[in-house]
């Protein structure tokens, strides 16, 4: 197979393309709506901590649980929509499998919502063993079981989708290492600057998520058995390892799936190529291992963990900041610099996502140091760093893609006033939300507290104002998505 042949795009029938576009839009609209609801949940929690809203601790922790699981789920389903849209241009993917995962996902969502709001499950999305089984009467065994079953169902759907990804990638490239660009990296094939970044990124996501979800399935099944047969008591530290491996990998992978939009669209907006080359392949090869290896940075305060595991976690956490600082973020800066880019809302959001990711690395890397973690672990510093990543990194990629799909990216008109207003409300709100969390963490305020001590209430109130701005910006984005997306033609 020649390299030019590999780089050419796949042909589908018109009806397949139409159906695929509807599927991608469904993923985006569903995902973004869930994000909006989860932002409202986040706003409610900050307002409750700031004493501006009175809700009971049981409802607070149910909201906290739905917020966590909802954001992870929305991130997965929306980023998969973005990834699938681009990947199917290079490998032959099945619409049927894509839809199947979508409907399995919705089934899981119904189970999870039922477990939380009917069954009153409030054991956090991390279902940290053995909390789901020991609630002191707050929720039933059944509610905990349905929650974990919901997660398991969603995981199965994604595994089916990844099987299709794997089948299609192998059919086109012969091996995962070739798809990752390793044959080029190690000199077995000449470097093909047109080897699709979407294929490289998707192969990485496929590998890590397959492992992550498999580990998740194992821990969920063990948890389910324990719920009904309490004499089966798995080791708490082993369960913690599996849960954080699963949780870290799946949420982290959403960034790597969504960044495909940046690789594909910034060249379109700047008229410059984003070439894949050896540093690019090397970075993505390293990411495969780093995304899977960093998870013990969640376990730095679990002193029985082997020291080498914690050292590896610290080193890899630093290491996983390097690809974005040296390859992806740096590449985005180069491609935009003196490009004459027209700043459409899509372009602004995609560029913002690179800022969010690059800057968000800093508090993340610091907290992943053992010595720092001793006074930052489980403070609001942690939500500070991941809200930075998610609000300023991931969501701008997803919304930037939605604007592209709505046809705004290639439009010659200036962005509408409502879009610009939405963008700045969102930008300021998201930045403030993250910075207030970081400031709270630097003041040792713990995370996951329904009621805050009087000394901390000012921070929560500032966070509430910031979160309101995020919701306002997101509302405007969603309105645009709902109005413009459904009827938009596929941008060519």
């Amino acid at each position: 197979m020649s390299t030019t042949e590999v780089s050419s795009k796949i042909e589908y029938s018109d009806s397949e393309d139409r159906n695929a576009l509807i599927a991608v839009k469904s993923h985006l609209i569903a995902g973004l709506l869930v994000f909006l609801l989860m932002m409202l949940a986040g706003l409610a929690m900050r307002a409750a901590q700031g004493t501006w809203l009175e809700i009971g601790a049981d409802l607070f922790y149910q909201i906290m649980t739905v917020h966590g699981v909802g954001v992870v789920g929305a991130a997965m389903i929306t980023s998969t929509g973005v990834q699938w849209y681009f990947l199917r241009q290079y490998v032959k993917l099945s619409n049927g499998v894509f839809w199947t995962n979508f409907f399995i996902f919705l089934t899981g969502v119904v189970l999870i919502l039922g477990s939380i709001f009917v069954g009153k499950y409030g054991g956090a999305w991390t279902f940290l063993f053995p909390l789901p089984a020991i609630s002191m009467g707050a929720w039933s065994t059944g509610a905990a079981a349905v929650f974990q079953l919901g997660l398991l169902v969603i995981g199965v759907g994604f595994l089916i989708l990844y099987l299709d990804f794997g089948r299609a990638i192998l059919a086109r490239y012969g091996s995962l290492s070739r798809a990752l660009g390793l044959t080029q990296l190690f000199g077995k094939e000449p470097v093909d600057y047109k080897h699709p970044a979407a294929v490289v990124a998707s192969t990485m996501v496929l590998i890590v998520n397959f492992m992550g979800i498999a580990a998740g399935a194992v821990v969920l099944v063990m948890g389910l058995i324990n719920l009904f047969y309490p004499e089966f008591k798995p080791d708490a530290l082993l369960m913690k390892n599996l849960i954080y491996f699963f949780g870290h990998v799946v949420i982290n992978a959403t960034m790597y799936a969504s960044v495909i939009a940046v690789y594909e669209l910034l060249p379109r907006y700047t008229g410059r190529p984003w070439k894949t080359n050896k540093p690019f392949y090397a970075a993505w090869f390293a990411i495969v291992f780093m995304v899977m290896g960093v998870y013990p940075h969640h376990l730095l305060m679990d002193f029985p963990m082997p020291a080498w595991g914690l050292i590896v976690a610290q080193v890899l956490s630093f290491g996983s900041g390097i690809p974005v600082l040296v390859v992806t973020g740096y590449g985005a800066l180069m491609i935009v610099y003196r490009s004459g880019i027209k700043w459409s809302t899509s372009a602004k959001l995609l560029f913002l996502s690179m800022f969010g990711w690059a800057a968000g690395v800093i508090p993340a890397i610091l907290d992943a140091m053992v010595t720092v973690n001793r006074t930052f672990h489980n403070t609001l510093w942690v939500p500070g760093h991941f809200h930075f990543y998610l609000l300023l990194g991931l969501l701008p990629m997803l919304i930037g893609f939605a604007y592209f799909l709505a046809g705004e990216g290639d439009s010659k008109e200036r962005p509408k006033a409502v879009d610009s207003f939405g963008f700045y409300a969102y930008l300021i709100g998201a930045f403030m939300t993250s910075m207030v969390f970081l400031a709270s963490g630097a003041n040792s305020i713990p995370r996951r507290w329904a009621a805050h001590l009087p000394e901390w209430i000012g921070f929560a109130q500032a966070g509430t104002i910031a979160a309101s701005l995020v919701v306002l910006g997101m509302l405007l984005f969603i309105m645009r998505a709902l109005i413009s997306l459904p009827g938009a033609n596929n941008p060519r």
Partner: protein
Amino acid sequence: MISTVYAITLVGIGLVIAVFYFVIINSKKTEADYQSITKKWYSVRSKWFIFLLALGTIITFASLNPFPIPDQHKEYSSNDYQVVAVNGHQWYWTMTPATVKSGQPVEFQVSAADVNHGFGIYDENLILVAQTQAMPGYTNKLIHTFDKPGKFKILCLEYCGLAHHAMITELTVE
């Protein structure tokens, strides 16, 4: 430590903002010769990469030497260490004794009776001074020396159910 980490974060984020702002204000002009841009900035990138590698190596060695977590296999002698047995329950702490002396290291032997908890020691200004996880089936040894007397608070730092935020007790340091 906390204020240093916070300051590094603010300065770091500020620098990233400055770089992105520089590129944004330089995005309007069009430089048709993209190759000359990539050539120049690829060479800067190599240096930037080496800088980050060197920085990472230095930070790793400096921050892990000595290893910041107390040796869990070591028997801390009762002559040198005050011993406090801690157990986390839904939703209270048991701590024996609840009074220690300043100036002499304390070995907290931390465990949990039911689910995971987080044992966080806060000073009188509500600043976190030390912590470890409290896990069922494990006893974590946390060593801390209080340098001055005072009333410290113990807060739960791992979500453990509906009254997680009410799991507060007091430790007296004489």
